[in-house]
């Protein structure tokens, strides 16, 4: 399909682009010496970049898996795999999410593809909620951060699972249709050869990255801003009783936007200040929803859906924790 001349042209273009980028790099070093800004801006920038550097590999893996789903999984597969029964489908999606080692950034493009392929929205949500919260790395890091105390780790997993189920069931009653922002066209071309399929997987991944990347970046920038300019100490001083402490810790989880695999130590460090119920609020709510994640969801789902979803999760997490107070 590609002529030799075309291949050569592509190679030359690649080299040319590499040269442009290296030139930009050299130029930027010159410019860096000229600009001078307040130190807090530089701090914010460091936090902003570190969140991105940490999240990007997961997002890229996520968009690649999304690309694979787009090309290799047909709507028919989905119809066959997902149980007809709503409750069975929700249970299955939560269990699959629990087995699937994902983080909250990587999972959004995957859920988008699945829902686009015909997975019911409530099943997609179940998967979205349990994926980042329940996986081996999170269990292990929680266990260790809380001084080999299995209680918190176990409560995090079990309550998290229950909450995900409840939220997914509520969603199934409230929403019909896939709630995706754009209408997802049914693939009209059949990719034939494997090589073609692989090529399309990567092409889809590129488009997905540019589509979703900007939301991740906005979310990371906001999280960095909050961390640089707003004192979490002020927030913490608001938490008196169990209920208000839980609200405070949930709010903290939302604005800090930590990766679910890295939040255990931070959560543990609040143990001297707050009851375990509030700590669990931090540990369960954070992986389900945070600022970075909300923005990524806005890139996929209708704003009305995202708003209600955030509201439902917030209320359910809070109520569940108040019902099953631990420690």
């Amino acid at each position, binding site marked *: 399909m*590609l002529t030799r001349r*075309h291949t050569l042209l*592509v190679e030359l*273009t*690649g080299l040319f*682009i590499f040269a*442009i980028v290296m030139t*930009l*790099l050299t130029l*930027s070093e010159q*410019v*860096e010496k000229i600009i001078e*800004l307040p*130190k807090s801006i*530089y*701090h914010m*920038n*460091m936090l902003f*970049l570190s969140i*991105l*550097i*940490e999240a*990007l*590999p997961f997002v*890229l893996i996520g968009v690649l898996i999304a690309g694979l789903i*787009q090309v290799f999984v047909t709507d028919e597969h989905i119809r066959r795999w997902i149980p007809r029964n709503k409750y069975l489908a929700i249970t299955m999606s939560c269990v699959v999410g629990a087995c699937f080692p994902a983080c909250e950034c990587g999972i959004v493009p995957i859920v988008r593809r699945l829902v686009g392929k015909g997975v019911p929205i409530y099943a997609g949500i179940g998967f979205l909620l349990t994926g980042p919260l329940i996986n081996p790395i999170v269990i292990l*890091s929680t*266990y*260790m951060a*809380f*001084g*080999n*105390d299995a209680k918190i780790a176990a409560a995090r997993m079990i309550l998290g699972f229950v909450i995900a189920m409840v939220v997914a069931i509520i969603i199934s009653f409230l929403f019909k249709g896939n709630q995706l922002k*754009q209408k997802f*066209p049914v693939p009209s071309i059949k990719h034939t050869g494997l090589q073609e399929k692989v*090529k399309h997987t*990567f*092409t889809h991944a*590129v*488009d997905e990255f540019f589509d979703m990347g*900007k939301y991740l970046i*906005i979310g990371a920038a906001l999280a*960095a801003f909050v*961390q*640089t*300019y707003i*004192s979490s*100490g002020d927030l913490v001083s608001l938490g008196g009783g169990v209920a208000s402490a839980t609200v405070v810790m949930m709010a903290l989880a939302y604005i*800090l936007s*930590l*990766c679910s*695999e*890295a939040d*255990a*130590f*931070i959560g*543990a460090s609040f*143990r*001297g*200040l707050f009851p375990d119920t509030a700590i669990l609020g931090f540990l369960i709510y954070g992986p389900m929803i945070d600022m970075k994640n909300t923005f990524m969801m806005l890139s996929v789902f209708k704003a009305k859906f995202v708003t209600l979803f955030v509201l439902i999760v917030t209320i359910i997490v809070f109520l569940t924790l108040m019902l099953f107070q631990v420690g």
Partner: protein
Amino acid sequence: MRIQLQQAFRAVILMTFVVFLVQLHQTGDIIHYINPKYEYLSMIGAWLFLILFFTQIFRIWAITKESVHKQAHACQNNHCHDHDHHHHDHGDGSLTLRKIFSYGVIILPLATGLLFPETTLDASIAEKKGIMLSLGNNGQEGNGGGAKPEGEQIPLEHTEPDPNLLTNTMTMEEYESSMEALRKTKDITMSEELYSVYYQQINQEPEVFVGKKITLQGFVYKEEGFSDNEMVLSRFLITHCIADAGVVGFLSQLDGANELAEDTWVEATGELRLQEYEGKEIPTIHITDWKIIEQPSQPYVYPIQIQYL
């Protein structure tokens, strides 16, 4: 044959991500952003960007009408609505304001990453993060007494220029023998790897260590309400990236501490005592000897994991 400028621009962006990440690794500056333990992850990120770049450069040139059509088709299928111009346009006709904004956002981290200098987190961030993280640390009750601390996430200091020399992990035997040594010694040096293993242990059972001599490094941080001779010798503990940094440190007593500016790096020796702070008994250091030092090349500390097997 015609060139798709937007596709070319996307290729440039992908390549810049590759170069930016690789450069961070080459210069070692990556440790200013993330825990060196996870460097390999960001390297995987760089490889994935490179693969995406190679995919992308094939989309820059459209040779025949058929291929132009095919590409447009694939795009439609993938629903990148911004590519509709492939059907009829020669290039940038439909470069809307919305799209310019989108690309602007994507470029933002690259621009600030390349143009802004790197900094180290300091006392101003510690204030926002909340030093209560460190002072509240001893509140990990339920773990004292006979509890086995083996699996704790324990901060480990990197002052070596090459952090890869340190593995961030410890075997059980190594951990137990170092704890044994810590309990016996009268003269604790919070040096190198053992710095932070010790930190955790001292905060867990401070009464064991009262009266012992301790030597450590840290930056000066002060809280509102501290008296003239109080300060905290602190470090940032990084789990994954600096956004999840927590502050760890010892409350320290030193006559004339008020003359030491925040963020000054100090190496100090003193005696460990217990002191009440906000209703809790916490280990504090009564400094006898100290000097101002340069900021260590690796200012952060990292939790380590004990290998169970």
